[in-house]
């Protein structure tokens, strides 16, 4: 099994990155190519900041863990984004999407438990 610290940092990193995606989505409705004005778009700035932070965590993990293991595990982020989209953005989930989440959980279990 992967070290506990790695798993915790991975959870934290993917959750932070997913929050970044949600904030980018919230900011996207006020987005245009007038990039200077976008400095006032708090949602976009916060989203980018969260993205950068999760990228830093990812680099930190990449220092010790093999790429072939760590990269598939980042698909945890898809699960958080789906859940946050339902909770925050009130988007609808369908059966195929729930099945997709189940498949990803199985895949992540296989990769991290049997390490």
């Amino acid at each position: 099994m992967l070290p506990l610290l790695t798993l915790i940092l991975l959870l934290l990193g993917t959750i932070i990155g997913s929050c970044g995606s949600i904030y980018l989505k919230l900011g996207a409705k006020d987005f245009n190519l007038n990039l200077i004005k976008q400095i006032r778009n708090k949602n976009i700035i916060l989203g980018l900041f969260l993205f950068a932070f999760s990228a830093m965590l990812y680099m930190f993990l990449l220092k010790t863990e093999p790429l072939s293991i760590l990269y598939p595990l980042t698909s945890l982020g898809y699960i958080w984004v789906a859940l946050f989209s339902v909770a925050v953005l009130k988007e609808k989930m369908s059966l195929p999407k729930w099945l997709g989440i189940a498949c990803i959980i199985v895949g992540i279990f296989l990769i991290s438990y049997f390490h």
Partner: protein
Amino acid sequence: MVNKINKKENAAGQNRANRINQEKQGKLSSITLMIVCTIFTSLGQLFLKFGANKLQFSLQGIFLNLPLFAGIIFYGVGAVLLIYSLKKANLSFIYPFVSLSFIWVSLLSYFFLNESPSFIQLLGIPCIIIGVSLIGGGR
């Protein structure tokens, strides 16, 4: 009279055929773009790993880390290609191709990093690919 109507119908049919053809070509080119995009992002991952191996948490250590910058540039090119391929095709249609990157990264880390995950771990990758395709491609 009949001839005219026939001609009009013919023209309309031609138009429709043209449009369908164009849509097909649009889809094809966006798939190609998407595949190139996944190759770029996977190369980006490889270089990020090279960069992470010699990463030092100091200003100098980060700014003199060439593989890290190479990784970021590959990633940036991948992102631009993704946006272009999304211009022509629906997200739900194109998204399953995103998970190709899981295959490329596995291959790249086998050949360039000498990593060899166990068989059970490799089974996890198709699960994730199916899962990501279902989430991105589902309605």
